[in-house]
């Protein structure tokens, strides 16, 4: 049964939301409210996965907008980046540790996340020692925040040369976190080629369904979510040796190319913001060229720089959900990267739940 058949006419109305991102914010709001009311009639047959968000900023403080989003989806669980781990002078070091700047986090189940750069494992660090340090560091943050998490998440885009070290790290971490649920992020290529990349020794995986395009390529249409690229990695009824949750993108950025090469990634940059930048002229869909030097998004851009604004469209996210259905898996949590003040400007507020329901629909 196709989606129109299942949701009736009202559900089809949602698909034209893909056009809204180019419209003014007031108009967007109206449309969002309108479609939200239409969507309330669309109910999935199976239980939808719980909607969760990543919180990736170093200072944890929820804005009113962020709180609204969380309340709208009855979000109970937040995946909070506690720290990054990188190498400096050959030593693994913690970076950008989270600081709880208000007490709003206490209303949620917090899943501590740790992002570890692949080069950390390329350096001659001892994986077991690192696991112990990270575990201790996480406990210090938990103590400071009076938190007792039951789930932890580790995020590393491991490669063939670092697989052994990363998995040793996970093995040791798992021992330390006995009694807790350990999850790890899985990239598309790791899902597709488990024989080559290995399956991490954890309890659950989170499939990161974004950042799949070639960010270096000035011709790339959308490096955040390119469902055509993703299609190459998925097959019908494909399986993975871990139960998976899914993570979808809800963010935007502007990529700046200089002298033919990627120069900067400007987080939270949008096409709308570029439209208001006098120094930039549109040269094609989502593409601009700097006519003179100017500051934009805390970057100093130069005349001649080529810019591409990227964000997933609603239609792309729907397609992504349909693609994910090909995997033989029961997704318990549908995560969105990431909770941010600017979400309302770019996405309908009920989109996460809509996507969760769509995933539950056979």
């Amino acid at each position, binding site marked *: 049964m196709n989606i129109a058949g299942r949701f009736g006419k009202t559900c089809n109305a949602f698909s034209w939301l893909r056009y809204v991102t180019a419209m003014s914010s007031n108009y967007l709001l109206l449309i969002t409210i309108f479609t939200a009311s239409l969507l309330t009639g669309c109910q999935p047959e199976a239980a939808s996965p719980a909607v969760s968000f990543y919180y990736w900023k170093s200072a944890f403080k929820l804005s009113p907008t962020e709180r609204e989003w969380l309340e709208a989806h009855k979000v109970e669980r937040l995946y909070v980046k506690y720290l990054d781990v990188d190498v400096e002078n050959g030593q693994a070091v913690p970076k950008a540790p989270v600081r709880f700047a208000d007490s709003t986090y206490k209303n949620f189940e917090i899943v501590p996340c740790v992002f570890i750069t692949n080069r950390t494992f390329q350096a001659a660090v001892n994986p077991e020692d690192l696991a112990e340090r990270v575990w201790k560091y996480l406990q210090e*943050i938990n103590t400071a925040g009076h938190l007792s998490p039951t789930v932890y998440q580790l995020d590393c885009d491991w490669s063939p040369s670092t697989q052994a070290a990363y998995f040793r790290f996970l093995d040791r971490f798992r021992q330390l976190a006995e009694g807790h649920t350990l999850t790890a992020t899985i990239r598309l290529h790791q899902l597709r080629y488990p024989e080559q990349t290995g399956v991490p020794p954890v309890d659950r995986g989170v499939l990161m369904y974004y950042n799949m395009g070639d960010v270096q390529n000035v011709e790339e249409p959308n490096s955040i979510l390119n469902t055509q690229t993703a299609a190459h990695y998925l097959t019908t009824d494909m399986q993975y040796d871990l139960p998976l949750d899914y993570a979808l993108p809800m963010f935007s950025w502007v990529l700046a190319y200089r002298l033919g090469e990627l*120069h900067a990634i400007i987080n939270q940059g949008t096409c709308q913001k570029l439209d208001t930048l006098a120094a930039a002229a549109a040269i094609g869909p989502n593409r601009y060229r700097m006519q003179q030097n100017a500051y934009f998004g805390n970057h100093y851009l130069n005349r001649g720089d080529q810019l591409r604004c990227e964000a997933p469209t609603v239609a792309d996210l729907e397609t992504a959900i349909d693609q994910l259905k090909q995997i033989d898996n029961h997704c318990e949590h549908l995560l969105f990267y990431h909770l941010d003040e600017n979400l309302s400007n770019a996405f309908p507020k009920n989109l996460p739940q809509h996507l969760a329901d769509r995933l539950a629909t056979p």
Partner: protein
Amino acid sequence: MLFRKTSHSIWLTASLLLSVGVQSLSACGPYEDSYHYFNLFVPEWLFSDEYEPTFYTADDYYHIWAEADYPDANLQSWQQFFEQPLKEEPLRKVLYDSWIEGYENVSREVLVKSLLFEGSLISIPRQEASKQYLLLALEMEALANRPTDTWGYQGQEKLSPEAAADLIQRLKEALEREKFPFLKNRYAFQLLKAYRYTGQAQEAIQFYKKYFAPLKQKDLISYWAMDHYAGLLLQTGANGEGYYHFLKVFEQAPSRRHSAYYSFNISTEEDWAATYKQCQNPKEKALMHFIRGTRQEVLGLEDMRSIFGLMGNHEWLRIVMAREINKLESNNLSYYGQQPIAQLMQRVDQGQSLLKNEEYEDYAGQLLRFATTAYYNNRDDSFWVLAKGYLELLLGRLPTAQITLEQAGALDGPHQRIQGELLLAIQLLGQEETLSKEQENTIALQLVELFADPMANWSTQQNNQEFILELLAYRKRQAGESIMARLLAREVLSSTKTDPTESGVDSLLAFINKPAHSELELLALKHFTGNESTWSAFVRNPEAALSAVRYDVLDIKGRLLMRDPEQLEAAVALFDSLPASYDFPLKVNPFNMSINDCVHCAYSTAASFTRNTFVRKLAEIYQIAQETNSPTDYYLLGNAYYNMTYFGPAYEIMNYYRSGVSYEGFYDCRVALSFYDKAMKYAQDTESAAQACFMAAKAQQKVFYVKSLAEMDQADYWYDKFIMDDWSGSTPNFEQVMGKMQVQGYLSYFKRLEEQYRQTRFFQRAIRECNYLNYYVSQ
């Protein structure tokens, strides 16, 4: 073609350049730690040290102003205050907690209290006042220092609020009490920091305004205070004022330039405008553009235009232009990586630019337009000649570049060096015909003098010189002069020795023996053989120098001849023709066998041979063996040819080095194997046959190793992978390798040994001592 017509004139110019002022050339090219690019436009040659931190680097880890530069300035200010010299090392330890030999176990507090001023002539009041200040400053570190435990979330414990308040109070009292202005300012600095680090930003700002702002004479510590003040202003949202104060610190206080440079990190139009508004004069505005234009992530052209508008042809303008040119070089001439020099030459031959895409060409074109304007407006400034000429060169306009550079005549001072190397590069890029001897002589002189390289080191950080050498090597390769191409590509004798080939050595000898070398050829040979003498000494007596090179290569040739037993007599004759210094005593007797290999072991049976006497003996034995089919002699030949390979203890006879990572030099055990076969064939008793059979098995095993390594993915190989000693705890690998040997037929001698010689005493001994045989038999 203009370029072709004028190509000869470049040599006149080059000769002219060389005749003027080359004696003064001394500085090397830039230090480029990561060797990213060829750099002809050497900023170190053009600008004073003061600006060195702004010079372009392609290495992300060596950003500009990466070194904190204040320790010495602070130390000097203390010494000035003391009026009498104080031992520097303990003072350095007190101020910076530096590791100082002899003071490792002395705390800084103890140093201040009892050792620092011991025996000094500094007045007692100054001593006492200094002690009090230094002790309080050490206490402040508990409040101000960064966490020392990297993996501690809460970091190093800071002072409790009560202790911090007490410290602030004591600082206030000390400030009030202090009479020496030098120390008073320092107490004020500590108090400012104490306010800041206890979260009292407003108090800190007010204190700065009250104490430091009115000071007419600002000393070093006042600018340090200003550095903090600027940061506090940013913290409270007064960004324009904050950035302006960083600008002032950058301008006035070299000891805080590093900090101020990175803190001047404007990221919005509003902040830029607000800071600009604070500037008191065009120079300050130009400085803003200079700092921004030299940031790693910025293209500097627009800021250059602004500097030009504000200050005219100022040095800052030239520095930014030099950076932009270096940037073009870095990103387009990185021929060590993915782009071989041939690709560059192809582009040049097709009349294209040296730049990799249209965006670069467009930017280089804009830079050229700017440089051309500056060139016509400042004809007496040699910098713009170079900038214009080099940008034309990068854009592929070689004839125009040549005219620009030649028409200027011999430029002044350091500009002349760059002019010379640019003209040389133009010549080599454009000249397809073979270089004449006269041209080669000029080039040789330039390689020595232009690059201040009298030892012909070549493989230095003078990567601009290497660019010229790469171009030369390419041209020689194109002309079919493979030896010169190899030498100009920096092949050296030691690398030839590592893995020589007969044809390679023969062609080298032919090159050495050819009559009437050009000076470039001699220079290349000098570099090839090493750098024991200067170029001038080398070229003074080329025949003597060539003779030494010839002997070296003949020695390699002799060792190569030895690989073929039929050539042993020829090798003997060749070694005998060399000076006695080429002979050497042997450490081990190559005729001896051992059940287990040990390359570096000291064998109890010391050798009485020298290399030459041994080779003569080897040739004799070979002849006798062939005439008599003597099994003993074949066995000894087998031992010698096994021991002289990479795997044997006498490897030095045939090889100069023994690699720790791969098989190199002579490693072919098939020669030894053939002798062991004959030893077995003619053996007259089973004991000696068993012994030869076992040795044949050893040789066969090494043949398998060599074959396996050749077929193996190199990433999967590690040194001595096949050696059993390294397999402790790794039986699967051992079984796997032995299994492969079995399947591929490389255990045939073990099989024969077991089947035919099991009853011999030698077999019983071998099975006890040799784990491989033991394993084979046990399966």
